[in-house]
């Protein structure tokens, strides 16, 4: 057999020399002569009706080239996942009727320097009639809660009008009736911020032929191009998107929140424009991961087999969809974990509140599920007095078995990973677990 050329070899990074000499070009390293700087005026309150948004004094301030408001946005009402059929649109690019979270963008000051833009921010005359915000998922789903979404509920509507993402597999009530133990657990994860060292940045240069050169540190260049074209109502071939090296992303640079406004500012002024978020904006305004609240109820046999699992999960999406309806779907598929469970019931809710929007972050929706699953597995092991390693072997799914979401298991490696990990840490395993492998399922359930 021919020896492998790459597998097992240590291959140097193509961009490594640039990184260690400071020669790699990031978006912030792009500048043009005659370039303007953009700063965003944002809502100071979490929920309210906009009564006045007067930018005339800011526009008149020396050094201000333009102020971009909702009137400048050709398609101001959108949602980024419209590309995969998520509806309805629920977010303004620039708000003008109501604000849904503290930090919501209202208008952009475009000026000769960042300093002048910052000074002019204070000249925007803003009056917002405050309303009581909904800041908790349990408050949001209570009957009689203030309805913050236009469609009349505070949850995303999935197929067939369901207010939650459902997974139904087998008969959980039958499973619970047969079980020797009922073991419950509630697991929660707070929101957290990606904190990339490079903040979100965009530089746009209008070209003489009518095209726009857009330098961006988005993690999803074509996704961003499509959404920007939809918001600007221009054919995508007018948008020359240039991505490149991203100074840390982790899911925090996929929300298409800098490119449309920077591009509109460049079109309105006819000059190159740069928008670089501050660290404060990165923390307070960029989407975070969302909070998750997961309630588990498992039916378990004396030998460790989980025969039924029912989960209710609530996700705090914040004010708008962003990527959350999709994240909740991914999440719901992973709530049973890498285990074969013959009876599964999942209700996973994508709940809206007046908080900073949540969106993708590393293992979007799956990480919280894995955390809950594995802590629950340890709890089951403790309740049964079993070795926590063994409870995982007993339940590990094998190739050919059906998952609750009706996808047959393929390329399972849990058993082999457990065996290798036990060896590495010197944990003794019984012979029957050492003899197991992911292809040993013969058709009858173990």
């Amino acid at each position, binding site marked *: 057999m021919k020896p492998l050329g790459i597998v097992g070899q240590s291959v140097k*990074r193509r961009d*490594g020399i*640039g990184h260690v000499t400071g020669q790699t070009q990031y978006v912030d390293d792009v500048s043009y002569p005659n370039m303007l700087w953009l700063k965003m005026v944002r809502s100071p309150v979490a929920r309210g009706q906009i009564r006045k948004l007067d930018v005339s004094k800011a526009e008149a301030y020396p050094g201000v080239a333009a102020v971009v408001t909702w009137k400048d946005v050709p398609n101001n009402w959108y949602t980024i996942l419209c590309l995969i059929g998520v509806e309805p649109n629920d977010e303004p690019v620039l708000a003008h009727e109501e604000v849904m979270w503290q930090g919501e963008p209202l208008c952009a000051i475009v000026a000769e320097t960042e300093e002048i833009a910052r000074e002019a921010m204070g000249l925007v005359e803003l009056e917002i009639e405050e309303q009581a915000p909904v800041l908790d998922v349990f408050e949001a789903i209570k009957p009689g809660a203030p309805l913050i979404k236009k469609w009349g509920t505070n949850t995303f509507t999935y197929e067939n009008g369901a207010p939650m993402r459902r997974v139904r597999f087998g008969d959980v009530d039958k499973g619970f009736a047969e079980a020797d133990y009922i073991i419950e657990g509630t697991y929660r994860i707070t929101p957290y911020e990606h904190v990339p*060292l490079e903040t979100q940045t965009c530089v746009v240069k209008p070209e003489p032929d009518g095209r726009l050169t857009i330098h961006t540190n988005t993690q999803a260049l074509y996704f961003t191009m499509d959404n920007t074209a939809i918001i600007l109502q221009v054919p995508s071939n007018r948008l020359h998107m240039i991505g490149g090296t991203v*100074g840390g992303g982790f899911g925090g640079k996929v929300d298409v929140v800098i490119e449309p406004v920077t591009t509109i500012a460049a079109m309105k002024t006819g000059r190159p424009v740069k928008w670089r978020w501050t660290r404060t904006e990165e923390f307070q305004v960029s989407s975070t991961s969302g909070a998750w609240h997961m309630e588990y109820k498992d039916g378990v046999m004396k030998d460790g087999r989980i025969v039924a699992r029912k989960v209710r999960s609530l996700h705090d999406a914040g004010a708008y969809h962003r990527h959350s309806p999709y994240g909740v779907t991914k999440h719901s598929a992973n709530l049973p974990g890498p285990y074969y469970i013959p009876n599964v019931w999942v209700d996973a809710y994508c709940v809206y509140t007046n908080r900073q929007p949540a969106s993708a972050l590393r293992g979007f929706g799956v990480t919280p599920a894995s955390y809950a699953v594995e802590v629950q597995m340890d709890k089951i092991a403790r309740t049964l007095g079993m070795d926590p390693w063994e409870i995982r072997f007993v339940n590990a799914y094998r190739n050919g078995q059906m998952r609750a979401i009706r996808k047959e298991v393929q390329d399972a490696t849990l058993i082999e990973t457990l065996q290798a990990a036990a060896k590495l840490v010197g944990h003794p395993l019984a012979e029957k677990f050492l003899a197991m492998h992911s292809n040993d399922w013969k058709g009858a359930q173990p």
Partner: protein
Amino acid sequence: MVTVSFKLNGRPVAAVAGPVESLRDLLREKLQVHAVKAGCGQGGCGSCTVLLNGEPIVSCLTPAVVADGQEVTTLEGIGTPAKLHPLQEAFYDNFAAQCGYCTSGMITVAKALLDRNPHPAREEIVEALSGNVCRCTGYVPIIAAIQAAAAKMDGRG
């Protein structure tokens, strides 16, 4: 406005600075020194680290006028793609630069450390890096790279 004259990586330079302009912005915007990165603007991440007379400082919190008459060294002055410094070689060889955004500050701080202490203990490296944030590479390969560079240089500075 005031003219600031200083030695940048061994060469004399001059630029006009505003009263509140940071050394970071002067270097990046007026002198096109792009190895100096804008990470937080609050002195909290170390991405903008430069050496002022050999000592590491956060250039975002340093007024540009402070550099007048002084010597400023940035990563560009430590080594180039054609002539890598041993620290740069070690960061490359040890995969100590994933996204690369913190790398400039990390190497600059490490250069100052090895200049004054050619054989640092691991704890001394950790202490020297305490003002520099990395969010994706991880600190373990960065520390290993600095150890490897120190061993290779063996006191040669």
